[in-house]
């Protein structure tokens, strides 16, 4: 409690730094969900360097796209087109983004497979189930469907076929493989996922996210004010807002984008942080009955110290699980895990150093009776 002024000062600085960064510096990077645009994930048959990818894209004027390596090193990439397309017609904007996506894919494919396609070969790395079945029907009639299924399953498992050997390793019979070699080729890349969000949809998602955050905060305030005194409710809101702002600030310093899962992460952090805060408030309430003679400040200090062990441990376990998610959970969920990582630490900080001081300040400004509302 002694450090409360330092704590508040530090918080203020952090938030200020974040704001400056957001408005004047790099800014908050809005992901595809909110900012609109296209996000494409591709997997290459053979390893490719990021610079090579950027070169291919620059050749068609898309060099400023954000390219990230994900997953299998050198094979998987995530590309976000950063073209700002301002157009009156929302539909045109979406179509323009889709065309950008097409251009990206074509640029990366280059001339791959053009000769083979002209000769009537099919790309085994991109063919769909029904076409593959049709292809196999001539040689294997009844079994065609089952075999096609197995091949597609193998492809899903491996990601992309680098050579026909992989088919044999997946248990496909040699005569099937030789049949395929005559009719197919292995394309250079495959599109793993593709997401295009038009401006209308982006605006809608932004609105929904904001509503979710506002209502959650309102819900929390109401609940805490109901269970404890108003002063505590206000403190909680203050703390929560700090949580969001601090985490947002720190997040903005990284290169990561803000998408819907990040909003979910914020709300979860808010929920967790409130947990800790409530535990402390609960203890304060209890101690107020026991330690009637002490000042509120001392009661709070003792309560904090009593709960410190517990707070750190529970945050620790959550931190452990989130760490596991961050390190092992794969790329798609990684931004979310990172946000949760920052958030859980930050949540403890805010609970311990901010929640009680705020109540004290409030009470200094609005002195009221000591009782608690049950």
């Amino acid at each position: 409690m002694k450090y409360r002024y330092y704590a508040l000062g530090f918080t203020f600085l952090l938030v200020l730094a974040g704001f400056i960064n957001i408005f004047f510096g790099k800014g908050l990077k809005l992901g595809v969900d909110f900012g609109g645009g296209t996000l494409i994930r591709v997997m290459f048959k053979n390893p490719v360097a990021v610079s090579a990818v950027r070169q291919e894209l620059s050749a068609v004027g898309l060099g400023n796209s954000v390219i990230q390596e994900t997953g299998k090193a050198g094979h998987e990439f995530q590309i976000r087109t950063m073209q700002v397309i301002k157009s009156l017609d929302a539909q045109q904007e979406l179509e323009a983004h889709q065309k950008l996506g097409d251009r990206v894919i074509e640029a990366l494919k280059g001339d791959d497979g053009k000769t083979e396609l002209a000769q009537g070969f099919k790309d085994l790395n991109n063919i769909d189930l029904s076409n593959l079945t049709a292809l196999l029907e001539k040689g294997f009639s009844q079994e065609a469907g089952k075999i096609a299924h197995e091949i597609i399953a193998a492809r899903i498992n491996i990601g992309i076929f680098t050579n026909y050997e992989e088919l044999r390793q997946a248990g496909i019979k040699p005569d099937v493989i030789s049949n395929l070699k005559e009719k197919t080729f292995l394309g250079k890349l495959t599109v793993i996922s593709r997401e295009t969000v038009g401006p209308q949809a982006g605006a809608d998602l932004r609105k929904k996210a904001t509503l979710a955050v506002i209502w959650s905060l309102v819900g929390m305030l109401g609940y805490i004010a109901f269970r404890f005194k108003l002063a505590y409710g206000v403190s909680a809101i203050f703390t929560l807002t700090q949580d969001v702002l601090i985490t947002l600030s720190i997040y903005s310093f990284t290169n990561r984008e803000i998408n819907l899962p990040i909003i979910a992460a914020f709300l979860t952090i808010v929920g967790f942080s409130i947990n800790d805060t409530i535990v402390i408030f609960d203890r304060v309430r209890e101690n107020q009955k026991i330690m009637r003679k002490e000042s509120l400040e001392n009661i709070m200090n003792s309560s904090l110290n009593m709960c410190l062990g517990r707070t750190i441990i529970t945050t620790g376990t959550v931190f452990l699980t989130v760490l596991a998610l961050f390190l092992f959970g794969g790329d798609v969920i990684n931004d979310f895990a990172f946000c949760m990582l920052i958030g859980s630490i930050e949540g403890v900080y805010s609970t311990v150093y901010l929640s009680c001081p705020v109540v004290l300040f409030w009470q200094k400004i609005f002195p009221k009776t000591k009782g608690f509302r049950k």
Partner: protein
Amino acid sequence: MKKGLRWKIILTLAVLAGCIVISYPIQKKIKLGLDLKGGIHLRMQVITADAANIETDQEILRLQELFKKNNISYTSMTKESPSKFTIQGTNPDQEGKLKDQLDQYLRDWDYSLIGTSISVSLKPLALQALKDQSVEQSVETIRNRIDQFGVAEPIIQRQGREWIIVELPGVDNPEHVQDLIKTVAILEWKLVKAGPAQDEATLLKDFGGKVPDDMEVVKGDPKRRAEGYYLVNKVAAVTGKDLRMVRRSVDEWNNPAVAFQLKPDGARRFEQVTGENIGKPLAIILDKKVQSAPNINARISDSGIIQGNFTIEAADDLVIILKAGSLPASIKTLENRTIGPSLGADSIRAGLLAGLIAILSVMTFMIVYYKMSGVNAIVALILNIILLFGALSYFRATLTLPGIAGIILGIGMAVDANVLIFERIREERALNKSILNSISLGFSRAFSAIFDSNLTTVISAVFLFQFGTGPIKGYAITLIISLAANLFTAVFVSHWIFDATHTKSTQKLSI
């Protein structure tokens, strides 16, 4: 055995058994979200102005016939907007008669007289009803097409006023499906007056370079090898609405084609047109693109084929679209997300790995820090997870990647409750209370804190569910179920396990 203990054990075992039975076998029972299974998610907007346009056009035609019948004079009727048109040049002497007619026949329309012009507009309520209906009909038509196409567990839903959400799991050819959905599919047969020509100028050579009032220019569809510009009659002899049956068939060279049969009324018109125009070409037009324009060889009454460079797949698509009927309005895409199955498989693998590591690390910590009581917490944790999967299977809730994250978070929070209780028990022990008393106090004192803290996270999860999209909804659900299960296991089950393993004579409390 203590009296109350027996029913507690039985209840717990019953719940456990129930959950295991419901979620077995797990691959089939858990519904996977689009981001884990792969598939396509589309958010589309119905351009309701189209429907209004059609309605206004038809109203103009109806009114024109009405005026003709009643000898009411006017110079022109022009459409101003999708829901408004103006009648110009009326005769002031006929005002009374005019008003009578309009009052009688314009049920859904408002009109106002300004000099010799009348402005007619669709009543707001009628317009809204029309828009709603076009959206509903679009949803139905799309559903129809997708049913025929054959997708397992599709989601086709109206969202808000004019949006439609389509989610098709497991679809591996997204472009194909999108075409299937978005094709408006207005099929028309129109007599060809000139063409095919390289460009419009050549086309209109014999018409003085201008398009006559009762004709229009349409382009050929390059996919059907019907290139070039055609000049056709504006009024269609026969349209898709006259179709009685369509199926895939073959043309005279055994290439795939679409065979059709007309309803009696349409057949009559078809017979008339073909009979009067033998030797001339008749264009078959789909969504303003000429598919083919064969010459009329003989008078045909009720059946024929649509041919022209169709693959089997393309022919099947056309059959699906025609069978389902045309869309009442055009559809535009607002959001388009395609997830390949390998990304989903990767995500599942990663999620399981992270989950396993999370569980193991938490378990290790609990045993190290709380010793034997830690085992108690671990049992509760395992039970928690089984309950979770049971609930997911029972409610047919969808598991998404954020959902898996939610489960992992839930693991961290589940232990939270145990920690609260154990710390409390330790405190009570430090005050030298008896073992049984400490346990009992630990649980009761910690309960309010546990309840409050779980509840607040549930509050934010509820709002996430309300406002979130698919994957986020999945997250919210798993989090809420986790917390609910947690309340059961940490408070109820842990408690009776403690009670069962510690009696009055227990000397040591390993915590």
